[in-house]
């Protein structure tokens, strides 16, 4: 079947089988920033935005994206670069495999909550597993990133 998606702001038509998952269609078409860490919607590595909300692309059938807006890490490169700098500063992109999915969740968190507490950060990111960093450093990096953004705004 043909699937129409507004992908990272561009209108695209993809071929997909009715039982294909969104992650596979995305990766097949070159959106390789979407990573696959499990097959059970448990790790968050495949997180993308659908109509502005975080979804797990490994647990979303591609046909469900028909007529919707999908944003992958490729579509938010500038925002990701900003976050990446804070991650790199703390050294919390170890193997980096979980990072793109985590970035997608951070961007969604920002959208939902103006000035999140640590508790809220953890809540929004709880579905993004990371086996390397131990999470603490990522929390430090996210906090600094958000604070810097606040500072920028108040300027």
């Amino acid at each position, binding site marked *: 079947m043909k699937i129409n998606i507004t992908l990272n702001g561009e209108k695209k038509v993809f071929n997909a089988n009715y039982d294909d998952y969104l992650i596979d269609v995305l990766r097949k078409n070159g959106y390789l*920033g979407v990573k696959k*860490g499990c*097959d059970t919607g448990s*790790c968050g*590595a495949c997180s993308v935005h659908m109509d502005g909300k975080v979804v797990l692309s490994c647990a979303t059938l591609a046909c469900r994206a028909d007529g919707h807006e999908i944003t992958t890490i490729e579509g938010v*490169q500038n925002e990701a670069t900003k976050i*990446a700098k804070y991650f790199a*500063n703390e050294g919390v992109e170890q193997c980096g*495999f979980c990072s793109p999915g985590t970035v997608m969740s951070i961007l969604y968190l920002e959208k939902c909550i103006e000035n999140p507490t640590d508790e809220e950060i953890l809540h929004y990111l709880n579905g993004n597993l990371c086996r390397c960093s*131990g999470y603490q450093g990522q929390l430090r990096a996210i906090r600094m990133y958000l604070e810097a953004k606040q500072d920028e705004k108040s300027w």
Partner: protein
Amino acid sequence: MKKVGKNIQKSDAISLVKGKPVYTDDLAPRESLIVKVLRSPHAYARIKNIDLNIALKVPGVECILTYKDIKRIPFTRAGQCYPELSAYDKFILDEYVRHVGDDVAIIAATTGKIAEKAMKLIKIDYEILDPILDFESAIDNKIIVHKEDDIFTKIPIGFEPKRNIAAKIDLQYGDMEKVLNSCDIVFNGTYKTQAQAQAMMEAQTTYTYLDHQERLTVVTSTQVPFHTRRHLARSLGIKTSKIRVIKPRVGGGFGSKQTSHSEFYPSLVTLLTSKPAKINYSRKDVFNGTTSRHKMQFKVTLGAMKNGEIKAIILDGLSDTGAYGEHAITTFGSAGKKVLTLYNKIEACHFKGKAVYTNNVPGGALRGFGVTQGTFAIESAINELAEKVNMNGVDIRNLNMIKQGETSPLYNMITKGAGKEPMYMDSCMLEECVKTGVSSIDWIRRINKVETNGSKKRGVGVAIAQQGSGLPNIDMASATLKLNDDGFFTLMSGATDIGTGSDLILKQIAAEVLDVKIDNINVYAADTDITPFDSGAYASSTTYTSGNAVIEAANKMKEMIISYGGKFYNTSNENIVFENEIIKNIKTGDSISLAEFSNKITYNLIHTQLIASGSFVPKKAAPPYMAGFADVEVDTETGEVWVADFYGVIDCGTVINPNLAKIQAEGGIVQGIGMALIEDVVYEKRGRLATDSFMQYKIPCRKDIGNIHVEFVDGNDETGPFGAKSIGEVVINTAAPAIIDAIYNACGVRIRELPASAEKILKALNNANN
């Protein structure tokens, strides 16, 4: 120092976070055949018949291979230096399957879905055999996991497959009986650790193709490219020179990629079809078809005096190596060798035991590599002994543990070719680690008082640990530096950065020696055709072993630049100084930048290429040390444990990059907390793994973790690169025993079998109350 000890960022950090295609699956050619492995549903069975007729008819199926199509060659998948201390007990495919998930057939098709469809249409007639699932009853059981006669070991490791024994260990010194008889107290305890999954985020992935010379090229997410090349050559029966292994960015390893797995299948398909092929393990494949931490059990006997002096230790263990013996003896050996040395004042020591075959998913390497299991047993026993002699965990350790400048006869016993000279642990800062932890956690006050808040009780606990820094006289690393025109360097290394940041660490070391800017060095790692040999990301070796190789290469390069500087200025070398990317003739005051110099010697004047190589093999043990302190809260109504604070104080010698080291430590501690409390591998009755996805196998997520405090003591090991020792493994070892001790100190329940699940704690609490 200008580059060492600094928080420099990884050069690929930004790309990784931005999701750039850098991992194996991102790079595979789109036209690759997709390879899948049909795995056994039975724990033990003989394949009576395989019918491929219908499966082969599925359009798009390229080939299906069974054991009948493959030359029978026993080999080991363990990523260890040659000859491996592991049994050659595996065949790529065999008539017998020995665990649920063992490989039965290899299917290659144009798409994954077609391969899966064909897989379902393969008809297999199994003769189902009774499996051994309980490792305690494996030895001399009537069920034999490996009945075949063509398996063997290259080195005697006590291999007796007909008795289900994969390896044996027996090490001792002192007159045990006499010493034990002289002791006031003899304490006995049994401790068990579970199998733990590495759970790295990127699954095993490999793609293969034939290059323009018809050589097999294997691009794979591995920790051990050189070992993998050797495994492939042997198991496929082709020459090593016909294989090239390339490692792109690796999405985590923790030991999972220190055993070759996914490499064999696409390699076979490519050799057979001449087409590119790819396999990307599903998470199920990872759980069922690779390895996990060896489940172990230890009986510990401690002989001590009333004043707390420990005089004798017996460590009698059993390790479940599962269906295959990869890393069986090495992990098990480490469980004693790298733990008992902590208590160097003992007069008698006996470390013995066996690694046994069962029909469980095989054990393998996982961060800590057996030391984690051994540390749990010994440290738990020491904590129990402390109570018996009316001491606390810190005091008993201060009395007995190894301190700076001391040695232990065990160091000589466990070091290949060590000779008789005692090995002094001059760089041991363990005492300092404990001291720092004591003040950070406010030990003296906290240990004497349990805080209660409703149903919640809070307590503290302690454990110490060490690890190795490469294997003396075994691990070998080399590095090559090339000066390019325009004055930048290529550092070629066979070491594999699996997320630890080792590429950057090696770069920092090279930049320090050469006194050049970090950005002036590009690291190229690892490609077996191009980069020099390295044992891989393995045995905590990279910073220490590969780092030392880089120092040698960089020193040689520096000498070369000076000597060519002499040629350039037509003067003797003594007149040349190379500093800060400038080559200076101190006699005349002339100088030239490294960029200009390298352009000149490349294009105009001397016409030469400067290349220098260095190699290193550790000569002595240079263990990193750690003291871990846990502060936990136990809910006595639910049995739930919350590690509110964990303090890890580490001696890894000089810290080359504080940020990277800190994250290594935090990550390792969290992995240790997972092992202590929640991670559990569960089998069903007939040997099916019940925890074969992230739904069932739980690793810590963000909300599971309290505060983690990491501190480094100021250490320096003169054999390490700029004084550095390893860091990656030691950091996991203290978590479980310290947490278990804290649980006991909080609520009086002593868990001797990991994980300390809420259920276990609650049961124990109820038992204690009744």
